[in-house]
């Protein structure tokens, strides 16, 4: 067991982990931050995307010990201070960008990272960026629409409905 210390959602967090413990498991099992989901075992689905030092990272591709000293943000930190949905989250609700909700935390974290680097992406750029986030419910239509709307772009002409 190794002790790791990191900042998670602005607060100091620590725990004893095995060398093989993934960051995703550390967040879920040690810190009980269960908003980060695990949907596969080959780092394909993106349900576990979090931000590590400001970068989008699949928390199943990183060992907890690798995140020692890092600044980690999870879906639980994304809402506004008063608990209301932030711009991206609100756009997902407004445009029905989620159904079962399981991929949603990863989608929101990825979208947030995308818009930080590319505040006005094209549709093609959004679709390309989401290559590492799989959704089985929405067919992506409304996810892409939500992210375009969150970037402040007019989505009324993207497609009928």
């Amino acid at each position: 067991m190794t002790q790791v210390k990191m900042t998670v959602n602005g607060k100091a967090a620590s725990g004893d982990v095995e060398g093989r413990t993934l960051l995703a498991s550390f967040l879920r099992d040690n810190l009980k931050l269960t908003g980060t989901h695990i949907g596969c075992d080959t780092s394909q689905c993106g349900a576990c995307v979090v931000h590590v030092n400001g970068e989008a990272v699949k928390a199943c591709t990183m060992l907890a010990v690798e995140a020692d000293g890092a600044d980690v943000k999870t879906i639980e930190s994304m809402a506004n201070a008063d608990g209301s949905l932030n711009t991206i989250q609100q756009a997902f609700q407004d445009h029905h960008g989620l159904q079962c909700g399981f991929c949603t935390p990863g989608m929101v974290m990825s979208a947030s990272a995308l818009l930080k680097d590319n505040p006005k992406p094209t549709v093609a750029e959004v679709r390309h960026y989401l290559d590492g986030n799989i959704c089985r419910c929405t067919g992506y239509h409304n996810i892409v629409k939500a992210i375009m709307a969150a970037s402040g772009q007019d989505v009324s002409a993207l497609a009928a409905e």
Partner: protein
Amino acid sequence: MPKDGGIGASSKRREDIRFLTGEGNYTDDINLHGQAYVFFLRSDIAHGILNSVDTSAAETMPGVVKIFTGADFEAVGSIPCGWQITDKHGEVMQEPRHPVLAHGKVRHVGEPIAAVVAESLAEARDAAEAIVLDITDLPAVINMKEAVKEGATKVHDDLTSNLCYDWGFVEENKGAVDKAFEEAHHVTTLELVNNRLVANPMEPRVAVGDYARGTGDHTLYTTSQNPHVIRLLMGAFVLGIPEHKLRVVAPDVGGGFGTKIFHYQEEAFCTFAAKACNRPVKWTSSRSEAFMLDAHGRDHVTKIQMALDKDNNFTALRTDTYANMGAYLSTFAPSVPTWLHGTLMAGNYKTPLIYVNVKAVFTNTVPVDAYRGAGRPEATYQLERLVDKCAHELGVDPIALRRQNFITEFPYATPVAVEYDTGDYVATMDKLEEISDMAGFAARRKASEAKGKLRGFGVNCYIEACGIAPSNLVGQLGARAGLYESATVRVNATGGLVVMTGSHSHGQGHETSFPQVIAEMIGIPEDMIEIVHGDTANTPMGMGTYGSRSLAVGGSAMVRATEKIIAKAKKIASHLLEASEGDIELKDGAFSVAGTDKSVAWGDVTLAAYVPHNYPLEDIEPGLEETAFYDPSNFTYPSGAYACEVELDPETGHVTIERFSAADDFGNIVNPMIVTGQVHGGLAQGIGQALMENCTYDSDGQLLSASYMDYAMPRASDLPFYTVDHSCQTPCTHNPLGVKGCGEAGAIGSPPAVVNAVLDAMRSGGKDVGHIDMPVTPARVWAAMNS
């Protein structure tokens, strides 16, 4: 103007708030005090004799609590099958025993052999590696047609063969159908494969078993679409636990698509082991395990033929299908290629004579069961590919041939035992031609050709049977369950109310759409209504969510219960208003006396029900809570027409979906936003099947597509924006909401349009191959173009 609430409003989903903030409560988020973890050692070969399972070394490993093998479950029941098919000779299907843990033999890669319960998942996994298996390999049975040949290796030694059943429908029509083919002016024949798929809800399955020794109460938390069904199947048939000592909870569930309907071994194991170990036992599936155990979908091999007269009218249809059951019969597996498939073979057409033969076959593969659409996509794909082929053979327009043969009068009794109540196939085709901008296709094709690409346009129609189903009918067809739904409506003293429904929401948005219905009925805000679902302890016995049935059946139960509430509330109101009950009207959340200005608010009536000081206690009981069970009198029949437009690169064989348009008739609609979202998701799965997804075994029974590295899940860049319209509405005539169901349409209606479009593109490039099997991958297209 869009409504801002009630039926017809695109109310935003209330469940989104918790999902968007990481506060969902999925089964894997549940951790019980003192829980242990189970890891299953699974077979890595498809077929073999299990000579011994040596756990002695593993038992000494750190953290091990207890190790179970098949021998521990000899006295436990078989995982049951919920549907019995009677074959064309009047014999019941062959039904093998399905053990919780393999015993004596292993029959597919992934079958659980031993289960290690340990203090941590890592310790359980480590110990499982120390279990020594002695297995004698047997030849794997993979190809269905080989499997039913005389002398083939048997998957189950105690069955007479690998043939589960040989079903003929309608057997009495066979002679007339064959005669019509002899007399046909033209016969079109098509052989095709409906590719095996994996449902892949993004949340892998999880089961947490708990047992209270002091009371003898069992609790199972599980990722299920139908917790009451699991309680009944597992309690009554596997573990022998009566319902009142077994609670099954399916909290937030991350997608189902059919594969979370079924009762699985891991649920029974965790329930059993929690008692045996006297502590909670948790299992979380990895995605790799999900590929190897969650029931797969489709996997039909079919030959279909259409007979036409000299005027191109369809005169008869016959189809022969081999349907893969896998190694065991999953919960509803036998019903999928039969009653959910054969009854849909008329499609949208007035073909007078139809005969369907289905041979269901055991193989050394993962069991196959219902996946979004379940039988209806298989029927639609065959029929709509065949009709297109007819048109091209006859040199007529595929849409005109369809229109010519459309059913236009309703109700319509098909020759395959169902009666469509309503529909308007001309209207949805007209709408499709409009929204797909068919008129502009020629110019778009020209633009593609200028870039060196080929462009194709394909259409199909579909009909489905949803809202399953009249219990007495399905009982005659072999269902071992009723298929009603239930709702309890509990009104609170201050007027808010809770609906406890047997339906289960795992992405469909019931928590938002169901309150819209009651808000409309009573005239109160939606936020006064809460939906409770997913827990057998606080919902009435219900059959759950699948087959696009929730609103049509569960919603109808809720309407019936609410009608009882309103009837009683009117009695109370008439007392309070000192008026005749017959004169009381409910509007906008207030009861009034017709023709007067006397009224009493909803909240005053509900308060009176619970504080009955001024109350007709001699006539009616206090309180305001009602339950209704709704058993539908028929299926519902959503229908529509879809168009796909593809661009094909002849250099690489790569196909892109440029446009996809869907014109659906779902009857009345409660929340258009949610309905559109359901269609989007279905389309993505149908397009995925047509272009990308394929679950593949090699001849040894090794699953070659067992991860997201190998199984091509559609990504955002693989799919287009969709054009979806559901303005054509012919309401269902037999349920109180006039609704039909929308959850599966997209997956049912889209694969043939995609393949028809690809073939159209190839023809425009001078290559007419007649048919190409799904998935239409670049390799297959390139090979066909260069054949």
